[in-house]
Structures are given as C-alpha cells and as structure tokens.
C-alpha cells in the first residue's frame, strides 16, 4: 500500500477504565482502522487502563455497549502487540487474568522501553 512506511508505527496508550467514558472505545477504533490500513499498531495499558483487559467484565449490566468484546478481533487486524504495565496491576491488586490471549506483562522499565520504540504515541 502507498501508505506503508516501514519505520513508522503507532502506539496507543490506554489510561482510562473501560465503562465510565468512551476513551477506550475511541482508542480501539483507531487501532482497528490503522490495522485495516496495514499500519504497525501496538496497544499499551497503564494506570486504570489495565482494567480494560480484566476477565469477567460485562458492560451490558450497566447498559454500556461492551466494546471489550472487540478485543478478540485483534488477530484478524494483525494487531499482535498488547502490553500491560505490571506495576499498574500490582497497585490495583490484580492478577494476570485477561480476557484475551496475547497480553504481555512488562515491568516498568521494559514497558517504558517498548512504548518508546514507536514513532507515534497517542494516549487515551
């Protein structure tokens, strides 16, 4: 594709819990569009953003359309890089029980290093 630039890649840094606002959904929409244009895209979860990955959630209970289910489509869009900040999990007393498979838990140093390999970073 003409848009393809091998040295460019996008990181989406998610910092918000899933249901109170639409930030997570807004980031997801960007990820899927970049994926469909074959742009290298990675997702990072830090702070309350880590709640987006936890198993057993169900937005339907509070009348919120549950965009978290769409995470299972990542492989279809060639989105393979999903990273979560270990320290954020520990602070919240959360185990690594994620609702998708390919999540990689990184310590603070590795999370920062991986994030800053990307040329463009948008935070939601």
């Amino acid at each position, binding site marked *: 594709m003409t848009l393809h630039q091998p040295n460019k890649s996008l990181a989406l840094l998610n*910092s*918000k*819990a*899933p*249901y*109170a606002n639409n930030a997570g959904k807004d980031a997801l929409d960007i990820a899927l569009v970049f994926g469909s244009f074959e742009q290298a895209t990675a997702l990072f979860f830090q*702070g*309350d953003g880590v*709640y987006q990955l*936890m*198993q*057993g*959630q*169900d*937005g*339907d*209970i*509070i009348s*919120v359309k549950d965009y978290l289910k769409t995470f299972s489509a990542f492989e279809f869009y060639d989105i393979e890089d999903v990273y979560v900040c270990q320290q954020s999990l520990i*602070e*919240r*007393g959360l185990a690594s029980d994620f609702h998708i498979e390919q999540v990689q838990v990184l310590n603070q140093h590795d999370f920062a290093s991986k994030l800053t390999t990307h040329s463009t970073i948008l935070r939601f």
Partner: protein
Amino acid sequence: MTTLHIVRQSAFTTSDFAQCLQTVKDSDCIVFTDDGCYNLTHPCIKQLSVQVELKAIIEHVNARAINLTNTKATTITMNELVALTFQTDRVITWQ
C-alpha cells in the same frame, strides 16, 4: 446529622476520593458508583479511621467484575441510593 457521599471516580486516577476522605465523619455513608467502585480495592480505604458505612451499586460492581470478598462494603440497588438520600441530612457528590 450525617452526610451521604457519592463517589464516582477512581482514586487511582483522580484525587476526588482523597478529598472525600478528608471530609468524612463518623456515621456518614459512602456510596461508590461508576468507577468509584474500584476504590473498594484501593489502599487508602484502609486509612478510614472513622466509622462509616461503605456501599456500592451492585450493577456497577458486577459490570466491572470487582471482587468485594476482602472489603467491608455491601452492595445496594439504585432504589436504596434514593432512600439513603433522605435517610441522611445532605449529599456531596465527588465527581
């Protein structure tokens, strides 16, 4: 004379709940709604030296898959929150 505190934000993200804790008094009631429900697992809840009731809206807890096992909180319905509004003397919404 007691106060109903409605807490709607995560203490991991904003200082609203920390400010609530500066204001809360014996016999007050704190109701966690929305992302405020995450506060039941926040370390600062253990700093509560006063005797307050901790409650959370059941649907908001369940949607977020929050485990209340090791907390002192009970779950309530929205109808019960409406009733609490008049069982207390005033309301502060921390959002």
